[in-house]
Structure formats: C-alpha cells, structure tokens
C-alpha cells in the first residue's frame, strides 16, 4: 500500500489488485488514470487488499472508494457494480475480491474495530482473466474510462 498520511484527508481512493494478474490490475489502472485529476485532499492508493492495510488506509476518512476486480459466476467480463456499504450488504454470498483475504474481511474487521470510513463505496468490475501476465482483457480495458468517471463522480458528490 502506498501509505497515506492521516492528516486532513477528505477521501481516499484505493485500487486493489495485482498488475501481473491480468484483469486484477483494473483497480490500480483506475488509480493511475485518476492520479492527476483529483485534488490534493484525495489520497490515491494501491493495495493488495490485505485487510489490515485496507483498514489503515480508510480508517477515519470521510469517504473511501475502493476499485477492485471480482470473480463472478457466471461472469460478464467488464460488467460494473457499485456498492455502498450497507446498501446492499457485502458478504460471502455476493461478489468477493479475487484475493485470499479479501474486502469482506477488511469490512468485517473494520466494523468490529470501529475503523471504517464515514462512507465506503466499492466499484467492482467483473474479471475475464485472472491468470498470470500483464494486460487487461479488452472487455475490462473498455470500461476503465467509465470506472474512472464513476469514481470522479462519487468524489464530487
């Protein structure tokens, strides 16, 4: 995780994923795309999704936006989901992170320890390929711009 300072952060955007796992790079790609488009009060971070790092990044921040690639069955690669915490609830039955210790654990732990952001928005994109290698599949690459715009929209609202 590129560690953000805890000082006066209005929002944090966390791209979760591994750029050497094809579509898992969607989150970091969106963060890179937005790096020069957000005000200084917004921290841009890349993470492997490990819960303690996620909690450290978002604890006490008014708004946290997470962008992550997810596995879905059946999958429609490139299909986007926007989830706001508690509406609908995120849990093992829904879309989960492609990582071993995932976003659901980070949210569960954050809740148990009162270390959640004021508001958590998750932008998830269904992955088509999570095998080893670089480069997004065309279906996911095609929605990176849309994803980035959606994150900007959330930051402005």
């Amino acid at each position, binding site marked *: *995780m*590129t*560690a953000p300072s805890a000082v006066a952060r209005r929002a944090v955007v966390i791209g979760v994923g*591994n750029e*050497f796992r094809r579509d898992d790079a969607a989150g970091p790609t969106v963060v890179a795309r937005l790096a020069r488009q957000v005000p200084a009060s917004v921290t841009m971070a890349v*993470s*492997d999704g*490990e*819960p*303690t*790092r996620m*909690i*450290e990044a978002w604890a006490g921040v008014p708004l946290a936006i997470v962008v992550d690639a997810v596995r879905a069955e059946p999958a429609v690669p490139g299909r986007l989901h926007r989830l706001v915490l508690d509406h609908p609830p995120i849990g093992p039955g829904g879309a989960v992170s492609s990582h*071993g*210790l995932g976003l659901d*654990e980070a949210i*569960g*732990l954050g809740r*148990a*320890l009162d270390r959640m952001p004021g508001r958590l928005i998750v932008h998830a994109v269904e992955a088509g390929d999570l095998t*080893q290698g670089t480069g997004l599949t065309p279906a996911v690459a095609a929605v990176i711009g849309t994803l980035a715009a959606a994150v900007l929209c959330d930051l402005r609202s």
Partner: protein
Amino acid sequence: MTHRHHRTLVARALARVEGEGAMYVLVSGGRVAEVRLDIYEPPRFFEAFLRGRAFTEPPDITARVCGICPVAYQTSACQAIEDACGVELDGPLADLRRLLYCGEWISSHALHIYMLHAPDFLGYPGVVEMAAEHREVVERGLALRSAGNAIMQLLGGRSIHPVNVRVGGFYRAPSPSELAPLARQLRGALPLAIDTVRWVGGLDFPDFTCPHELLALADPGRYPIERGTLATSGDLAFTAAEFEQHVVEEQVPHSTALHARLAGNGLNGNGRYLTGPLARYTLNSGSLPPVAAQAAAEAGLGPQCRNPFRSIIVRAVEIVCAIEEALRLIEGYRRPARPAVAVTARAATGYGASEAPRGVLYHRYAIDADGTIASARIVPPTSQNQRAIEDDLRRFVADRLDFDDERLTHACEQAIRNYDPCISCATHFLDLRIDRR
C-alpha cells in the same frame, strides 16, 4: 459421516494460509495410509524468466514472488548477486538491510499470529469474529503490523514489493532524523510485542513434537535474520555456496512445488527437515537479544521448541527480537556517504541465503561477464518444509482418528497453519480432503 474406517471428508477451502492448494488424507482400515499436500497451482517460472535479464533486476523481479515476504526475496537476491560480483555490504548499508528485514518480520509475524493463527486457539472461525469479542487484542496486532509496515514504508519506499532496494544497497538512504519517528513508533510497539508473547504463552497447546532435523542460518553473536551460514540440528554446517550439496530438490507427482530433502538423508535417515521459526529458535535461542530472551523464558519456551503448535510463541518472541534489533540499529545509525556501493558485473556464480519469516530462502545466480543472468535458482522455505509437514500431519491424524469429520478437518487445518505455509512462494493452497476407507 459414514463408517469410521471408510469415509470421505472434503473441505472446500482451507482458509488463512497464503495461497491455494489441497490436502489429501487417506485413512484405510483405521490407519492413516497417505497424507499429501497437493499443490496444483501452475509453476510461475521465475527461475526461467530471470535468465537473460540484467544482474540488477532480480531484487525487483523476485520481490513479486510473494506479497508477504518481498524483502526476503530482495535480500537473498542481492546477497547472491553481490557474492558473484565480489561485494559485501558492511556498516550502515548492512544495518539498513537488517533494519528493513526486521520490518518484514514484524509485519509478517503480526499478521500470522493475530489474523491467521490466534483464531484457531480461541475457537473463532476467523479474525473478524475474534475481533468482535477481543477487540483490544486485535488492535494490538494491528499496531504491531503497522510498526513493521512503517519500517518497510520508510526504507523500502512502500510496504508491498519495496522499490528502494538495489544490488549494493539502496537507491536512497534515510537521514537519522527521518528514522526518529520510526524509533518512537517502535518504542511504543515493544511493550505490545512483549504482551503478545505473554498472551500467546497462555494459550492451550496440544502435546505434539516434530522429530525432524532442523535447518536455519547462524550469524555469530546475533539472531539470524538477513544473513548467515547454514547449520542443522544434526551438526551440519555449511555456507550458502554449499547449499545445493546438502539440500536436494525433487519433483513429486502431486505437487507443482519441488520437495526438498537433505542429501544423504540427514540425521534421521529420511531426509526430512524443517526450516522456519522452530528451527531458528532451537538453533539460535542463545543469540536472542536480552528483552526477547527474557520474554521467551517467561513464556516457558526453554532453549528449544519442537512443538509446531507453540510456533506462535516463537513468532511472538521474534517480533520482540526484531523490534529490539530495529531500535538498536536506528540508535547507532549514521547516514552512509553513498546509498549503495558500486557493483560491477563479472562472470561468476553467487549464492545468498536469508531467514524469511517462514524459513531459509536460498538464491543462486550465474552471471555472464556482461551482467546477463545465465541461470537462477530459488529455493523457498515452504517447499523445503513440505515433506516435514506431510509427516507431521500423518502422525497428527493417526492420534486423532476418533475425532468426527468436522473436528478432524478443523484440527488438520489448524495444524497446517502452524507452519504458516506460503504456497504463493512454493507456488499456492488449499482444499482438504480426507478419504476413510
């Protein structure tokens, strides 16, 4: 559950280990006939695609083998290449390398103790459920992990896959004043680490002993972390350059990770050996710094520890050790004149070994005169431990055949987590299947 002598258990995923794979247990006629760690993740060919790369690249490339112990990969790679090029770090650069490694130990061990392992002992399915009833305990774990990450962040540039490490040292060396806030955080973390030892020392542990030969680094006068020569409980002593004369890797049908054994089959005649916290501690407990040594004694560890379930105590003691060492290194730190020493390529083969949180990590590189890597060899700790884990599981299950399926499955999962296996390194883990026939 079917007949006790003929039944099948399937656990879809063994959680809280790093990576993916499967475990298969065959119980036939009321006896454990076979135990296999089935590692099916495709090999990642790191050794192959390092060939033809520049000799400066392995620290950054091999850091990608693992998100939990990238510093171990960077360090072993740097050492091996520096060895090939006739360079040895000393002074503040060597201290910075050890300090960075301390950060990884603290972070990795805190993650394993609190997030992955402790829920087993306290009867929770995971850390989220544990946090609901033991909030202050989990907060302590997060604070320790944060202290470790802070070291990696400052020295490595970031806490995952650090980018400030290079062959010969670092791209940038911090000033002493930059390390001052880190020292404050570590001084605050030290009592938390001592409390951790006391806390895990009070857990209930099954009576279980692993008889394997133990392999760890030895670093005269101090606890081995980032460098050292190799030693075994069978009194073998050798350098990293001799590693492949003493450790043999073999392909087995059920795993994409190689299995290691001691050449000549070692002290016990079966070649099985264990590396990692139990081996490190048992072979080096006399080298612990004073606060860690006292914490270990108060927790009742004694000079040796051969119960894998008690490895959680050893990890806690090693957090104390790493914090103590980090504070000592920061206190004595003077900024080096240059952040790295010049390393000039030459046609040679170099060897490096360091103590990853999970055990000895060995690298070997052959370099051409123009600095191109001709061959690479990486032996991670989990692949070394596979045979010992399988053997321990075989004996562990044999003593618990009267357990019902659910209880036995859970017990096996807990037992596997004792070793903190990193299948991501060895290649990934884990479904559990028990056949009872």
